[in-house]
């Protein structure tokens, strides 16, 4: 009982400290992780095995960490090293791509293809944001897309805010479409033994339908704001996309590595390669081809985020081992009266509302054992609950300026050019879009998976 209370206190303290930003978030999760290991597992539970299980270091030495044969197996709980190794690999690849000028070139090329017309740029950038975020973290996607949007807005004399807001939304939506698009999906996928194609054929399909809806929605909402005040310029005056490329060799290699990563991810259920194996492979290839820049790329890896994940998984492990999450699952089961429709509605809406205000990564990591337990006790297909959880956590973050990392990056980029996006301005268009997408997702889950 004491262990349970302490686990909840540590968990809540972690959330509050993350929100208040008193210390950097990786310091918070690592500190709370240490407390979990020492106080809960050590002093309260006297359980060295709980510590060993939660640290989960043995997973590196299992074949399943690198290669699976046939049906993928579920992860054993504790630190989800598969997620951490994959994210580290993707970070290195993305750094390499950014260094070569890949993203800026892509944005400029598309703007040029649509002849620098504002509405076509608006629509194609939404789609580009969605597609890139399927494979690359949304922070990087928005970092480049929003910067190019600001640059184009100065050139074509339009307000960049509507475009940046719709790009943010589509980046978060694109992240929901694949297993590697958003950290909650990677955690859900690796924890529950799902494949890339499982996500694409389920959340991916929902996300594409939602993309069509939000493109129409944002067009209707923003079309009046997206008018140009510029005198028509000679196309020769616009920037040449090729100027964005810093190194031609690096640029070509970036494309090849990116396409390899996409192919490996799409086919990983057939090849049996796990996402951690793919992460290590693309990181090694990026570093080997980077030559002298390899050390620079390694230095730029966001180690703080990786450490944040390590600490987070230990704290959630504390909740799991003390049985708190089973209790929470039992509570959801009771409230819903065993009705699957109600359960899905609770999971998707609670996830969305929570993710609108708090970090969706700790939330998803906490909810996975909950839906696991719920599926086991109520005899429900776990994947249905997983899709509801993925859509809720991935999309909910779009509703408020603090809901997701991409939102913060987009707002900060707009601010650099003097466009302040306040809560009211943000939520006025983004909250209805979030509600619309969550509704579509819920209806699609009902129609497709419920008898």
């Amino acid at each position, binding site marked *: 009982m004491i262990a349970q209370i302490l686990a909840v206190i540590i968990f809540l303290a972690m959330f509050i400290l993350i*929100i*208040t*930003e008193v210390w950097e978030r990786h310091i918070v999760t690592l500190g709370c992780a240490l407390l979990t290991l020492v106080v809960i597992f050590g002093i309260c539970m006297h359980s060295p095995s709980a510590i060993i299980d939660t640290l989960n270091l043995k997973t590196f030495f299992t074949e399943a960490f690198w290669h699976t044969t046939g049906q993928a197996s579920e992860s054993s709980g504790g630190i989800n090293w598969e997620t951490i190794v994959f994210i580290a690999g993707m970070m290195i690849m993305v750094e390499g791509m950014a260094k070569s000028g890949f993203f800026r070139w892509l944005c400029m090329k598309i703007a040029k293809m649509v002849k620098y017309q504002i509405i076509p740029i608006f629509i194609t950038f939404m789609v580009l944001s969605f597609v890139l975020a399927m494979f690359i973290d949304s*922070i990087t996607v928005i970092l480049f897309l929003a910067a190019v949007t600001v640059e184009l807005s100065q050139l074509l004399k339009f307000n960049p805010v509507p475009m940046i807001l719709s790009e943010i939304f589509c980046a978060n939506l694109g992240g929901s479409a694949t297993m590697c698009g958003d950290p909650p999906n990677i955690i859900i996928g690796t924890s529950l033994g799902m494949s890339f194609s499982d996500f694409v054929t389920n959340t991916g399909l929902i996300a594409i339908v939602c993309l069509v809806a939000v493109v129409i929605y944002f067009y209707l909402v923003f079309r009046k704001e997206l008018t140009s005040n510029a005198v028509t310029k000679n196309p020769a005056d616009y920037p040449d996309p090729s100027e964005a490329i810093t190194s031609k060799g690096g640029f070509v290699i970036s494309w090849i590595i990116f396409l390899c990563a996409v192919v490996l991810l799409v086919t990983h259920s057939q090849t049996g390669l796990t996402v951690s194996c793919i992460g290590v492979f693309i990181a090694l290839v990026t570093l080997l081809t980077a030559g002298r820049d390899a050390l620079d790329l390694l230095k730029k890896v*966001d180690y703080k985020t990786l450490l944040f994940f390590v600490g987070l998984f230990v704290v959630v492990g504390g909740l799991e081992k003390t049985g708190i999450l089973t209790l929470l699952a039992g509570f959801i089961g009771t409230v819903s009266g065993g009705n699957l429709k109600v359960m899905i509605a609770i999971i998707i809406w609670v996830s969305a509302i929570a993710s609108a205000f708090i970090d969706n990564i700790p939330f998803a990591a906490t909810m996975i054992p909950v839906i696991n337990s719920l599926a086991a006790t109520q005899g429900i297909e776990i994947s249905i609950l997983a899709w509801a959880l993925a859509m809720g956590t991935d999309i909910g973050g779009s509703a408020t*300026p*603090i809901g997701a*990392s991409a*939102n*913060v*990056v987009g*707002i*900060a*980029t707009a*601010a*650099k*050019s*003097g*466009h*302040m*996006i*306040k*809560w009211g301005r943000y939520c006025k268009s983004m909250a209805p879009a979030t509600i619309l997408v969550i509704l579509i997702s819920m209806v699609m889950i009902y129609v497709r998976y419920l008898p």
Partner: protein
Amino acid sequence: MKQLIISIGREFGSAGHEIAERLAKRYGLPLYDHNLLDEVAASHNMDSQELQEYDEMKHNKFLYRSINGMSSSPADNVANMQFNFLLDKAEKGQSFVIVGRCSETILKDYEGLVSVFIIGDMESKVARVQHLYGKSEKEAERFIREKDRKRKKYHDSRCKSKWSDSHTYDLSLNSSKLGLEGSVDFLADYIDRRMKGTK
């Protein structure tokens, strides 16, 4: 001409702003204070009114988030715009006087920076605020404490150094002891000696 950047931090009512104005006049330098936002806004073709409400404000931690040094808070973003503006001026070798805005920390790498913090006795500050704002003694004292609390929060949420701590500045001066003119003369003497020492 050697670069000279005079950074003036100040307690509310200590006449720090007026000292900054007089120093700017004496050295023939532009003065940046709240007018900095007009300059920043002009450089972005925007209305400075939109930025004014976030000037020297601290954000509410529950309403905003930051990621890798980027923030969703307008107050943070307005502050960063001002910092970048000052850094740009300093990088170009320009000389100026700047009041507040964490300038003693933001510009600390520039050799031409002279940072000063102006304090004052509470009675003198109250008298000055009463005179300038037509407030009662109690109101003036409350006003001073509230303003200083906000300035401290603004500064300390953005800098590792502490607002009003003598370690943060080259010099801390109580303007009540020497008076306005005396303080300006004393500071000018200090600045001249410092300038002789710089390359």
